[in-house]
């Protein structure tokens, strides 16, 4: 009796009143706004909030208005990109954890980011692709292929795709892809030159158009996620029950997979592989919302954006004048969450 109770508690955090969930979401959004403003202010050249607001409202008053130019041309695109990628990765993590019913699911842990990277390297090497529009398609295909591969490998055998198995399968596939990527990149100097700019998992040095180009993919993915929330709730009760409740299980799974690929592939194409956002964010969200996906999805968006924008600001501050890549900072934050989950007595399915 007690054992079942603890297990249920572990897998499903308590559901809080709607007021708390909605109020908390508002607080998270306010924090997100604060983080965005901070991201516009902070850097190797600090800019006062008033100046930032003026720049946003009136634009650069003269060509010599350096502060306004920095805000509008450097920090604004970067911040918006971070926001979009964070939102996308947060939701992608939530979708993944719902689809595989696996608390350890994350685009980095399952090797999907490496699949996207490998496909982009192949694109640069074989077809001479150097633009982001080109990257996106390769990234999507690579993400999709590796996602299917890892799932098939993890689901081998009688006991099926347990959380630990999927994580292991993803690590193994990711490791060999990594070896191949480094080997290819070292042979071909031009590929290396393209790739090293792209791969760092950072928001700097991106084409200002990057956001515009991946945004359609991310928007479709986010809309899919929000639309699927109800069906995923039913799916969480088990396949049989979901079917009895009128959910078309196969179609929902396929759509969820499509959403994951769009979100991960788009985000990875825009700023390189960023790990652990997709893992940590949904867990933090569920602490407040409980298991209801209609709440988990918006919460994951808000927290994902918050995490990436904050990580970017922190990365700019800790190593002045150099910058710490955002992927490095998120790994510092996300990996301990992973460790905490992995250390539980049993890694339960969601």
């Amino acid at each position: 009796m007690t054992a079942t109770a603890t297990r249920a508690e572990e897998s499903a955090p308590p559901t809080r009143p709607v007021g708390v969930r909605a109020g908390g979401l508002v607080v998270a959004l306010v924090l997100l706004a604060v983080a965005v403003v901070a991201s516009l202010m902070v850097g190797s050249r600090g800019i006062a909030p008033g100046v930032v607001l003026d720049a946003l409202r009136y634009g650069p008053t003269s060509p010599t208005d350096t502060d306004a130019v920095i805000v509008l041309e450097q920090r604004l695109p970067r911040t918006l990109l971070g926001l979009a990628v964070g939102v996308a990765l947060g939701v992608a993590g939530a979708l993944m954890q719902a689809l595989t019913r696996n608390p350890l699911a994350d685009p980095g842990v399952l090797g999907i980011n490496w699949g996207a990277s490998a496909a982009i390297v192949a694109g640069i090497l074989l077809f001479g692709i150097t633009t982001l529009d080109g990257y996106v398609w390769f990234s999507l295909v690579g993400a999709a292929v590796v996602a299917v591969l890892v799932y098939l490998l993890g689901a081998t055998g009688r006991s099926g795709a347990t959380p630990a198995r999927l994580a292991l399968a993803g690590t193994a596939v990711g490791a060999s892809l990594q070896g191949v990527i480094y080997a290819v990149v070292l042979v071909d100097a031009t590929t290396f030159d393209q790739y090293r700019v792209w791969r760092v998992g950072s928001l700097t040095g991106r084409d200002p158009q990057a956001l515009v180009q991946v945004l359609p993919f991310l928007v479709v993915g986010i809309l899919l996620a929000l639309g699927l929330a109800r069906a995923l709730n039913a799916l969480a009760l088990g396949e049989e029950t979901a079917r009895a409740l009128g959910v078309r299980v196969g179609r929902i799974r396929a759509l969820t997979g499509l959403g994951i690929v769009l979100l991960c592939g788009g985000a990875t194409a825009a700023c390189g592989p960023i790990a652990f956002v997709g893992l940590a964010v949904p867990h933090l969200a569920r602490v407040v919302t409980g298991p209801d996906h209609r709440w988990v999805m918006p919460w994951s968006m808000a927290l994902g954006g918050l995490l990436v924008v904050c990580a970017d600001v922190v990365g700019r501050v800790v190593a002045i004048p150099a910058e710490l890549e955002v992927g490095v900072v998120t790994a510092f934050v996300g990996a301990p969450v992973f460790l905490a989950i992995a250390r539980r007595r049993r890694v339960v399915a969601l």
Partner: protein
Amino acid sequence: MTTTETRPLPTGPVVRTERVSVRVRTRVVTATVALLVAAAVLGALAMTLGDYQLSVGQVIGALTGSGSRAQEYVVLGLRAPRVVLALVVGAALGVGGAVFQSLARNNLASPDLLGFTTGAASGALIAIVLVGGGPAGTTIGAIAGTLVTAVVVQALLGGAVGGYRLVLVGIGVNAVLAAFNNFLILRTDLSTAVAAQSWLVGTLNGRGWTQVVVVAIALAVLVPIAAAGSRRLDLLGMGDDVARGLGVAVERTRVTTLLVGVALVGVATAAVGPVAFVALAAPQLARRIMGTTGPGVLAAGLLGAVLLLAGDVLGQHLAAPTQFPAGTMTAAVGGLYLVWLLAREWRAGR
């Protein structure tokens, strides 16, 4: 991961003297001879191929002191240290892997998956950044880093050894340490960063007799200890209580072997940088080739030496004149091997 299949009893002639009698296992002898031949062939390839082609006779001439000055320089100054270094480092990694795998009673408990190798890299990087490196500083740093990582992983596991949690904890620890390494490289000045980065690739390029001597001394001291302990480790595999009943000092055996493994991995990593997956694959392959059940410390060492030498020869000549670091070869091949290992194990329902 217990082996359920029944293996045939070892067959072969028995050698008896007055005090000892030893059964000579035919398969083990054949396999050992085959591996030695493979090492010799690979060594000959490594010594003869390259920008400066030599015949086997010329190599032997240079080694015995009757070659020209140029030949002697190429053979003794460049190629011989590289071959010997590949052999000793591979052997150290193989033995270290066998020690950890039998200590944890888990096929996947290799220093790479547990984060020890990354920890060694962190220690060495700290040494490079703070003390300016040098072989001694890097070695001590790498060993200290491995030791600290091993202690942290143990603490995170909280005594529980079983199953996949070990590997999941390793994945998390790996991510944190990798992020930390990135941070260190970013914080230092350019020349130190370049030195650190070139070390991090895991290559046999530009290493010399100094590294060979350090690793060889470590092997000479540590391998006998590991080999002597391997019988006791076999007994530990039956469970602590049984082992204690059979007269094994359980705690002491565990601590000694752990220290031996840590020192081997640390020294090997300090010499050439983190080389992936040799420590994972060598003991597994050795067990299958030799048809034995135990950890087979010496066999794992022999196989590790052959694997790393093969990886280096392949990396040097696969796409000459471009040279791949041996680490990329072992990562690509080792990752695939891990995928295969997992698929096989899971299909068998274990």
